[in-house]
């Protein structure tokens, strides 16, 4: 009869905001691996026995994203084992610990935000699937949002279309977000969280008060955020991504500030939320 799967080796981690990505050496196809089982417990450097209670995910790939972690960062210790086509379990890998990258959403003080940093587009206008309305309501390809006056549900469409989107007229869309700073500016960070992008990827230019702040290379996504609004549903294939460029104090000013988000290349982005956070 077929043998048990081999022990999983080469377990590595890669940290990002709200996510620790694990990868390991593939065990190949003999025996065929039904899936890998990822077990985890909170805390660092702990040895533990894999049980059903600490199973955090199954994956057919030699890769797993431990998602939905606290934006402040979470530390977990992982062990991975394989289950074969016959239902046999291999021995677990050695334990490996990792802490997800803390986000400014957790470490900073919110100055102004559009939406909730929750993995969903749902609070935004036309979400989760009314994208066809966006070019109708924004024929000039400009979204205007004034903090305090507008709300995400009335003025911030859940997608920002790009030149790769024929349904939106293949235009460069821009979202212009204006907010007031009452006191003296301090060093801050801009949090830009996306629920999904398209298979085209793209380039999102970020301008602050009329001049370039940064240019973000967008990864290829699942192209599903135009029709599904919740990346936290178990098994969701939406591909969240996070960008948190720094904003030095001297780039901000007391009174009105305008952040402009310009989708210069590629297909749409689906917003989770954007926000300015002052550093502690």
């Amino acid at each position, binding site marked *: 009869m077929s043998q048990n799967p081999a022990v999983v080796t080469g377990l590595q981690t890669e940290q990002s905001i709200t996510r620790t990505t694990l990868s390991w050496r593939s065990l190949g*196809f003999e025996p*065929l691996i039904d899936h890998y089982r990822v077990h985890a417990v909170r805390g660092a450097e702990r040895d533990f026995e894999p049980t059903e209670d600490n199973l955090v995910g199954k994956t057919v*790939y030699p890769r797993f994203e431990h998602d939905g972690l606290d934006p402040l960062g979470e530390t977990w210790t992982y062990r991975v084992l394989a289950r074969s086509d*016959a239902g046999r379990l291999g021995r677990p890998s050695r334990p490996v610990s990792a802490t997800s990258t803390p986000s400014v959403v957790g470490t900073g003080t919110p100055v102004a935000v559009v939406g909730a940093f929750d993995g969903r587009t749902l609070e935004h206008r036309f979400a989760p699937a009314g994208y066809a309305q966006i070019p109708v309501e924004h024929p000039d390809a400009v979204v205007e949002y004034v903090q305090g006056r507008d709300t995400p549900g009335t003025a911030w469409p859940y997608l920002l279309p790009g030149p790769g989107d024929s349904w939106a007229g293949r235009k460069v869309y821009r979202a212009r977000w204006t907010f007031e700073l009452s006191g003296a500016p301090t060093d801050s960070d801009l949090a830009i969280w996306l629920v999904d992008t398209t298979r085209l990827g793209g380039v999102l230019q970020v301008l602050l008060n009329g001049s370039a702040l940064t240019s973000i290379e967008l990864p290829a996504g699942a192209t599903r955020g135009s029709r599904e609004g919740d990346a936290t549903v178990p098994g969701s294939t939406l591909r969240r991504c996070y960008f948190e460029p720094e904003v030095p104090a001297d780039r901000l000013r007391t009174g009105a500030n305008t952040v402009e988000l310009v989708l210069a290349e590629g297909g749409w982005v689906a917003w989770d939320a954007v926000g300015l956070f002052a550093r502690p």
Partner: protein
Amino acid sequence: MTQPAPTRLSRRRLLQAGGLSAATIALGISAPETAGAEPVGRDELFALGVASGAPRPDGMVLWTRLAPDPTAADGHGGMPLRPVPVRWDVATDERFRDVVASGHALAQPELAHSVHPRVTGLEPGTEYFYRFRVGRGRSPVGRFRTLPAPGDTPERFSFGVTSCQAWYHGHFTAHRHLAEEPDLDLAVFVGDYIYEYGITSANLWRRGASVGPASAVEVETLEQYRLRYGLFKSDPHLQRLHARVPAVVTWDDHEVQNNYVGASSAYGMSDELFAHRVAVGYRAFYEHLPLDVDALPEGPSADVTTGLDVGRLARFSLLDTRQFRDPVPTSAEEQHDPDRTMLGAEQERWVADRLVGSPATWNLLANGVVVSPITEDRTDQWDGYPAARQRLLEAMARSSNPVVLTGDIHKHVASELRADVDDPSAGNVGVELICTSVASDGDGAPTDSYTPDWVQHDYVKLYDGRRGYLHVTLTPEQMESTFVVVPWVEADDTAPREVVARFTTPAGRPRLDRA
């Protein structure tokens, strides 16, 4: 436990393989009576029914999968994780008084307790009945007719064509009616036997049905693919069809993932990672269908191309239009690159040889995606591979009465195929019969927003957007193709059978005449 040397395996690799070894596979095909654990005999073991396939003049592959609980979340169907011996019988009568062949196979957890014994030594053109037994448990009885002897020309041969079985979108009323067709010798499944999408309240339109949380997520692991086949194959109408006639099957994309191309996912994942999903998707396909062992995948590679000859009346070739295709073109220049391939060079040669060298009156190609030219932007279809299509049409032109059978689009379409798609004055080389979905897209309507794209062409003779199946009868003189629809599938499975169109195609005249 004693394991015999494999006796029925043609693939050298199986003799060399470790892991899921030659002997292991062989036991799913032929095993000694003493192999395996004590039987756990109950009729409920056969909750997924029986099937036959890979027909030959002297025999057939029989299939069942032991699964008392087909939707068990671990994908093992409620079976213990140990081998179980299965006995099979073939008889000339439904009561099994005249058993002409019998044997043992070993249902093993490696293959989700599926067995694929090949019966040989039968008479050509003869009806048989078969069943499986485990302990005192008995399967439903299936039947099949062996193919005619190679030199014979039968008076007629009838088959059904179905595709796109999105179980959650509706009831399998089409299968209910197809299983009751008076003339039926074969069922041809042309792709999307399952769908991989998560089943939630948003897409569960099959009234009265419910699924557990394990079915709510997109299918990626082997246990999930097994569970998905278990769910779809629990449908009694699909089971009745399989029990009624042999089946031949090719796949399209949803047996793995929507719109995958060659070895690549369409959803931003490296090929190296995606190969793991392909491997379990292909494995589950083999486990759940009555396929020859040649279709058993080797990791992320599988050979599901196959063929059969109905004497000298018809030759079927089942193509794989998914695994070997070139990537989606990124420009018109790339789209029209003469080197672009849909089938891969080896399969292209194989099908050309089968077409050109065929002794049959009718030459049928079953494939996953539409051959007829419709619009330039339908790059998932052969429209995305125009040079490869032209080569296929040229091979068809050198064969006798070629007919393409297709699914994929969830519409009934009948089309004539011109020798040169760019030349309106070119004569026809054959016809393409595209069957609508069994359930995908729910009830549907006769026309929809896609209709103009199709009916703009004078060679498209039918378009209908409802659910149904295609029934074809071949004789030496003509082919009769009947497009059947059912007016609804979401509410229940009681919709009547309605014929939306019937065409005749005279032998030697590649056209569609409305009957």
